[in-house]
C-alpha cells in the first residue's frame, strides 16, 4: 500500500477534490499514501475542479449576496428547498460548518456581510491551494480554454464580487471556450486509435448495467456519438472527462483516482493506475472493523 519513494503521481479530479476538501481521516489517508512525493495534474484536471466544486461554491456566494436573502439561515433554507441535489445539499452543509466555525449568527442580518467575506476568502484559498499544491505535467493536449479562466492572483483590495462575477460569465461562455479548444482533434486525430479501442472494448463488454461498468459505458457511449457526428462541447466534457484524463496521464506516472471507469480506461491503454476507496468508505472503515 505504501508507495515507493520518488514515485510520481498523477491525480484525477476525484482525488484532487478530497485532497483539498475532505474530512480529516480521508486527508490523513491520502497523506499517508502519497507521503512527500510530487503530485501532478493537468490544466484539464484543474478545470474539472473549478467546474465541479469552486463553481458550485460561487453559486452559493451569489445566492447569499442577493438583497432578498436577508440572513444566512434564509440562504441555507432557500438553497435546500430549491436545490435538492446531493451536491447542493453538501454545499449547504459545508457553508453551515464554515459559518459556525466563525461563530456567525445565522439569524442575524448583520452577519451576512461577514459571511460573504469569509466565504469569498475560503473560495480564494481553495483556488490558491489548487494552484500551489500540485505540479503541472507541462502538457496541455486539449487546449481547454476554460482551464485558463481561474481565480488566481486576486488582491485583497480588489472587488471580489465583481471578479467572481466576471469569472462565472467567462467560465460559462462555453461557446467561446469550445471555439478555442481542440478536444475534437484530441480524439479524432491524436488519440484516435485509443478512442477506437475504447469503443471496441465497450461493444464487447458484458453486464454493462453493473454499477462498476455504468460510468465507463456512459463515457464511451458519449464519446462514440461525438466522434460519429463530430459534435464536441463543454457539456460533453462533463461526461467524457475521465477518458480525456486517462489519455493525458503520462505513462511514467500512476493515475490516482476513485472512479470505477478508470479500471477500464487505464487497462485498455496500459496506463498504470490505482483506485482508492471513496471517502465515505474510509470514514466508515473504523466503525465496521472488529
Amino acid at each position, binding site marked *: 500500500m505504501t508507495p515507493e519513494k520518488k514515485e510520481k503521481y498523477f491525480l484525477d479530479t476525484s482525488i484532487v*477534490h478530497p485532497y*483539498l*476538501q*475532505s*474530512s*480529516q481521516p*480521508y*486527508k490523513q489517508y491520502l497523506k499517508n499514501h502519497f507521503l512527500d512525493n510530487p503530485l501532478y495534474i493537468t490544466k484539464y484536471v484543474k478545470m474539472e475542479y473549478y467546474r465541479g*466544486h469552486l463553481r458550485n461554491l460561487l453559486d452559493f456566494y451569489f445566492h447569499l449576496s442577493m438583497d432578498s436573502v436577508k440572513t444566512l439561515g434564509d440562504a441555507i433554507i432557500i438553497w435546500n428547498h430549491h436545490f435538492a441535489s*446531493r*451536491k447542493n445539499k*453538501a*454545499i449547504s*452543509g*459545508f457553508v453551515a*460548518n*464554515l459559518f459556525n*466555525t*466563525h*461563530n456567525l449568527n445565522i439569524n442575524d442580518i448583520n452577519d451576512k456581510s461577514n459571511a460573504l*467575506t*469569509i466565504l469569498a*476568502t*475560503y473560495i*480564494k*484559498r*481553495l483556488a*490558491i*491551494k489548487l*494552484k*500551489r*499544491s500540485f505540479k503541472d505535467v507541462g502538457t496541455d493536449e486539449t487546449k481547454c480554454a476554460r482551464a485558463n479562466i481561474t481565480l*488566481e*492572483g*486576486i*488582491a*485583497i*483590495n480588489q472587488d471580489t464580487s465583481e471578479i467572481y462575477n466576471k469569472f462565472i460569465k467567462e467560465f460559462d461562455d462555453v461557446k467561446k471556450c469550445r471555439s478555442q479548444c481542440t478536444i475534437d482533434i484530441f480524439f479524432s486525430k491524436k488519440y484516435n486509435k485509443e478512442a477506437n479501442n475504447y469503443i471496441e472494448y465497450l461493444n464487447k463488454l458484458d453486464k454493462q448495467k453493473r*454499477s*462498476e461498468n*455504468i*460510468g465507463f459505458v456512459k463515457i464511451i457511449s458519449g464519446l462514440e456519438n461525438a466522434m460519429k457526428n463530430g459534435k464536441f462541447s463543454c457539456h460533453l466534457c462533463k461526461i467524457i472527462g475521465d477518458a480525456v484524463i486517462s489519455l493525458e496521464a503520462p505513462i511514467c506516472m500512476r493515475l490516482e483516482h*476513485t472512479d*470505477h471507469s478508470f479500471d477500464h480506461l487505464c487497462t485498455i491503454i496500459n496506463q498504470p493506475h490505482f483506485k482508492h476507496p*471513496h*471517502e*465515505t*468508505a474510509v470514514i466508515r472503515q473504523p466503525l465496521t472493523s472488529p
Partner: protein
Amino acid sequence: MTPEAAFKFDYTNVGEPEREEAYQSDTTPEIKTTIKGVGEVLPFRGREREVVEKKAESYDAAEDETPKLSFQSERDYIRQGVPQLQPPSQEFIMIMRSHFVNPILKSLDSIQPLAGTSAGAAYIADILNNIHRMAQRSPSDGFIEILLAVYDSLAFQGQWVTYNPEQFKNAYAILKKYAERPLLKPNDVEKAIMEIEKVGFDTTPIPLVIEDKS
C-alpha cells in the same frame, strides 16, 4: 522649521517625526489647520490629499468665477456624490498589525509548551478573537487573509488540539516574517498560506463530502 520648509513638506512621510514638527509649526497657520484636520483621519492618506486638493480648487474658483470642472475627469464627474472608499495608508495597516498581530504572536509563543492540552484554550481563544477583531478593523490588509487561514486551521472542530509545539513555533515564525512586510502582494499571501500548510496546519479543514453515487 522655516515656512518654506513646511510648504515643501512631503506628505507621504505621514507619521514620521518631522511631521510632528510640522504640526507644531505656527508659521503656516492655513496649512497647519488643514493638516490638523486630516490628522484626525491619519490612517486614510487619500483623504489628506483630497482635502489639500479641495483647498486648491476653492482657491481657483475664487480667482475665476466661472465654474471649473475641467480638473475632473469624466469618470470622477459621473461618480460625484458617490462615497468613495479610500484605501488605507501603509501606516494605518502597520498600526493595526502591531495592535492585533503582536498579541497573536505572543499567544502563539505562549501556547507552545501547552500544545495539545486544555491549558492552551485561553491562548487559542485570544488568537481567534484578535483575528476576528483585526478582520473587522483592517479588512483591506492582505495579512488578514493569512490570519483567516490560520483561524480556520485552528478553530474548526477544535483542530488546534492536534497541533504540536513545533508546529506552533513554525507558525509563529511565518506570521512574524510576513507581518513585518508592509505591502503584501497576492503572491506573498499565497506563499504564506502554503507555508502554513507545509507546517501541517490545514487551512481548508471544512469537508465538502459528496456521497459516492455507486
